């Protein structure tokens, strides 16, 4: 089991590399669109992840770096899946399924990296909690952003507000980990409780931005 888990990020990054090439080539040959910038970013990100997994002692396999890479790669997969939605039915279905599987793999990878080495149980719980809220929050923010860009008439100056909850979330997560080292448990748990309210905040902001409850 342990050896299998070790190989997860490695096989993930290789599959991601192949996914990037496939989406790019199918787009190019069926629709005539060459998304070169996306290809370069995708290849760069998945290669970096591959490197960080293959060299456990390099600075690139530090937990923070690795998880940043996972997040960046999730964005690559997400945009790749979005690109695939334009294609013919067959390609779009297959690539979308692969995209979702990869995305699930990325999330697993994030949990795995965070929980990796001999942490106390309560710290692990905190990480799991924060990461889960983080994923929900990111997906929610991107979803609202997509809808807003799709339907809003002539740009919306308030769009930056949608990112406020994500930033607050990041700050709270950071403070929690700092305070944890100082062994101030009560503050940590209070902050963790606040963290639960952030997605609610996102929805409230969304309502305000989109105007009068939805659109």
């Amino acid at each position, binding site marked *: 089991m342990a050896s299998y888990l070790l190989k997860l990020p490695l096989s993930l990054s290789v599959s991601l590399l192949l996914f990037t*090439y496939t989406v*790019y080539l199918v787009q*190019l040959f069926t*629709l005539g669109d060459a998304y070169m910038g996306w290809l370069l970013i995708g*290849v760069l990100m998945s290669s970096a992840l*591959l490197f960080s997994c293959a060299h456990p002692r390099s600075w690139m396999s530090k937990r923070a770096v690795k998880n940043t890479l996972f997040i960046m790669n999730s964005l690559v997969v997400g945009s790749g899946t979005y690109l695939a939605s334009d294609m013919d039915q067959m390609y779009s279905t297959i690539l979308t399924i692969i995209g979702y599987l990869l995305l699930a793999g990325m999330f697993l990878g994030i949990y795995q990296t965070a929980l990796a080495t001999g942490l106390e149980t309560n710290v692990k719980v905190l990480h799991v909690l924060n990461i889960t809220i983080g994923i929900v929050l990111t997906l929610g923010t991107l979803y609202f952003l997509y809808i807003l860009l799709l339907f809003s008439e*002539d740009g919306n100056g308030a769009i930056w507000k949608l990112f406020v909850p994500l930033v607050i979330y990041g700050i709270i997560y950071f403070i929690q980990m700092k305070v944890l080292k100082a062994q101030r448990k009560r503050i940590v748990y209070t902050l963790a409780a606040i963290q639960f309210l952030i997605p609610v905040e996102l929805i409230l902001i969304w309502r305000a931005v989109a105007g009068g409850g939805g659109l």
Partner: protein
Amino acid sequence: MRKTILFSCLIVLVTGICLLLGFTYNIPDEEKQQGLSGQFDVSSNGNIAYVTYEKGKPTLHVKSNQVKQIVQLPSNQSILDLAIMPDGKSVLYVNSDKELDEESSSTLHQVDIKSGVDKIIFTKDAIVTELAIDPKDENRLFYIQANKFSNYSPGATLYPYDCDVYSYQMENDKHQQHTELNKYSMSSLQVSSEDDSIYIQMDDDADVETEENGFETKGRVFKIPLANPDYKMVISIPEDTQDLYDFVLIPDRSELVYQAVANTNSAGIYEYELFSYNWETQSITQLTHLHAYAKYPIYGADGKVYFMVDDDFGGRDPENSLYRMNPDGSSVEEVSLEE
């Protein structure tokens, strides 16, 4: 370490090949369109003029006994509408930029079918969306002109609106504005062959006072007498009939053939079919059952209704083909545009 270098080389190589392929096979947006654009006209002697895109280049053809290419424009241009002159010897067409912007203008051309000689009749700093020749006076041409643009969402292409009907006298080069309606959309412009009036499709918003009620308007066919454009009237059709869009009048049968939504397909996309309304019997008949997007009906001199069908409505690119049928909806057949 050797493994890493080997792997990096492999990735660089594959990525390089992909980029190279990208430069070779990337098709610019304006060169992607292929096939029938949808614009066509049928002359009194049965010739069909139509527009296709060939690698994005709008190309005007006329099919008589054989197919003849008359005009080909660069791929950044588009042909918005065309009309065969009543003598059947030349075709009028209006062209503009494919990507419309505030600076776009429209140019009306007349091209001789036999010689292919193309002359410019006029240019306007607005978008001419439709043409119709007056059946009573072949030197008078009516057109719909859109004066403003909007875009639905950032990044989307501009959409012309603020439409009104104008006419042009070829003999004395005179333009005349007939309506002052500033409509968001107008289509299916037709000129009456009996009296001095025109027919047009637009939203019936006479009862609407606020913008919020804008969604409650219904697409209807109007008759506008040119002598008194304010006295426009809705061509009678039962009140509860849904929106109707493109149409053609068939006076000798007392019928209106029109386009309306018939159904929704499994993917949630509307299916537009052609219907007819007989104003003597006041009955509505559904003429087509093609489960696609039937549009632009034209009444041919051979007594048939010609229309376009888009089999991929709601998809990325339209897949148009030309059909014809009897006005009662019988013998629907595809018209081959090959020799």
